[in-house]
């Protein structure tokens, strides 16, 4: 299976959709219609860049900050919203909540809100690819915080020793809930640890979707070629709080401002405009499509009923 080069305009629209989805959710939450949630505002580039480099056979594991990964993969924002709102038509029937969506039909397996959970499961998904002679690889998204859980070492070590086809994607967004990364590790990133375990690594500007796409494509090529795991660390920033609502009172204002200036959506848009690849009309059309998509999604989720209590104890056992 071959992956087409990333169309930067499409990448922009995808990022805009992710942003709009999360802003919708924040708005719904503000109006008491959805639970609080973790957004990925500012981190749209790793989602779009990495997921665009995957094929349909590849599987994804992700964490509590997963909306971008799902949307980049083509998941329906209406069913996602429905899930977050606990509605019956959500991907998991409303049982999973705001942080947990998995969607088997898109190969988004096993979203874990236990930080580190995705790392613990990824090796097994990689192992099944190997043992069942599947061609797909596994993309495992996790945060810099997850990398301080011991499962990080255990997962990478096993993947290295067993040669499992896993693309580890660390979205190093500088924050671990209410703690800055600098308080939890001495190095600025985690590639050193991966390298010490024998895992090949690369670091990429996590606010540039095109750079991420290229780095991910190269990493995936290496995985398909060697069968071995690879760790890609995308340096980015969590522009909003940990969990909505969050006043970010603990955030260094200058640092936040610096990264706001590097907003991945504004950055790509400016670049495309500069390069004459994005007209005002095209932009307006994109905005309209995104707005329409989110309106439809909200209407869908609103219309979806809550599950009946009869499902309280279904799906416990197979």
């Amino acid at each position, binding site marked *: 299976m071959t992956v087409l080069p990333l169309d930067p305009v499409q990448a922009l629209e995808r990022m805009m959709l992710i942003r709009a989805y999360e802003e919708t959710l924040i708005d719904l939450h503000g109006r008491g219609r959805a639970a609080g949630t973790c957004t990925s505002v500012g981190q749209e580039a790793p989602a779009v860049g990495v997921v665009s480099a995957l094929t349909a056979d590849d599987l994804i594991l992700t964490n509590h900050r997963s909306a971008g990964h799902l949307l980049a993969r083509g998941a329906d924002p209406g069913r996602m919203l429905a899930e977050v709102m606990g509605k019956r038509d959500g991907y998991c029937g409303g049982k999973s909540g705001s942080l947990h969506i998995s969607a088997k039909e898109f190969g988004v397996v096993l979203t874990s*809100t236990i930080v580190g959970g995705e790392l613990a499961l990824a090796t097994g998904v990689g192992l099944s690819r190997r043992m069942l002679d599947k061609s797909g690889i596994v993309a495992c998204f996790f945060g810099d915080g997850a990398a301080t859980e011991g499962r990080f070492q255990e997962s990478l070590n096993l993947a290295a020793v067993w040669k499992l086809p896993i693309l580890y994607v660390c979205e190093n967004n500088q924050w671990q809930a209410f703690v800055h990364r600098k308080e939890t590790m001495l190095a600025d990133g985690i590639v050193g640890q991966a390298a010490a375990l024998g895992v090949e690594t690369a670091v990429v500007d996590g606010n540039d979707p095109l750079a991420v796409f290229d780095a991910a494509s190269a990493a995936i090529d290496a995985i398909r070629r060697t069968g071995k795991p690879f760790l890609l660390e995308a340096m980015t920033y969590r522009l909003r709080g940990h969990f909505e609502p969050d006043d970010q009172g603990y955030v260094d204002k200058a640092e936040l401002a610096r990264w706001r200036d590097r907003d991945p959506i504004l950055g790509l848009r400016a670049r495309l405009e500069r390069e004459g690849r994005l007209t005002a009309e095209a932009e307006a059309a994109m905005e309209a499509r995104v707005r329409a998509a989110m309106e439809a999604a909200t209407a869908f989720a609103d219309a979806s009923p809550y599950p009946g209590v009869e499902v309280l104890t279904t799906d416990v056992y197979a």
Partner: protein
Amino acid sequence: MTTMTVNDAISAALAEEMRLDPTVMIFGEGVATKRHDLLEEFGAARVRNTPLAEGIIAGTAAGAAATGLRPVVDLLFAPFLCYAMDEIVNSAGKLRYISGGQFSFPMVVLAMTGAGWGVGAQHNHNVESWFVHSPGLKIVMPSTPADFKGLMKSAIRDDNPVLVFADIALGYSTGEVPEEADAIPLGKAAVRREGRDVTLVSYAKTVGTCMAAAETLAAAGIDAEVIDLRSLKPLDETAILRSVARTGRLVVVHEASRLCGVGAEVAALVAEKAFASLRAPVLRLTGPDAPAPASFPLEQAFVPQADAVVEAVRSLMDERAIA
């Protein structure tokens, strides 16, 4: 008396004990960020953020406790304790015994649990009975601000590892707390309401459920006694047995699931030691044997409700044959 929330009661207990004893300290993911008052008053050495790694947080607490400190660690949500089971159970709970009494482990583990936040089964799982089953630990799970404060103080002063579970739904509930609150001894239940017809045993948020049920029952002429366990280990067996000896009927209510839960223990205790007084089957009302759903109506349905308690009691009152 001051009125305060459960969250404030916990903070007050921490501050007071840290003032009294310089070996008391607190750490955990975001602790220094979120407990800024403590950081200001006691400084960065005694109030620390940690890396995101529950196992080493709990292990550090155990090692520190064994060698002269009194650490309090906040592990955030009860399911995250899964990453720290070895340190809590195999180390803190056992190494005193294994070492023939050479070391003790004066440490406190804090965690939130329970339905009410809609965030699903990996943040909401009531696992207190695991620790009741395990040797060497103490467990408290209060229901009022005063108890949170008093029991938290005792937990910090205790020379053993104590787990303090805070039912998330109670965090912002308020109550009267004595100004100079004394420590409340671990292992003593509170009788929240006296009654002679049936004993309702509960803890955490479902104490309120039982109180509501008792009101309804009272209107129907049924006089329910409500016991709030507060401490799950040591368990106040005397309070339970004394009550059942009088009422002859027992319903245990909790949100944790039924199988091998605290309700099973209370029921088994009574079936052994108060059998002669029992006039009706012992009932348990618990959360279902399922992970906690996130969807609001399902999450509500997960928790035992006052109606169901009323109904259970009524069914017991009808068991005339046995009386």
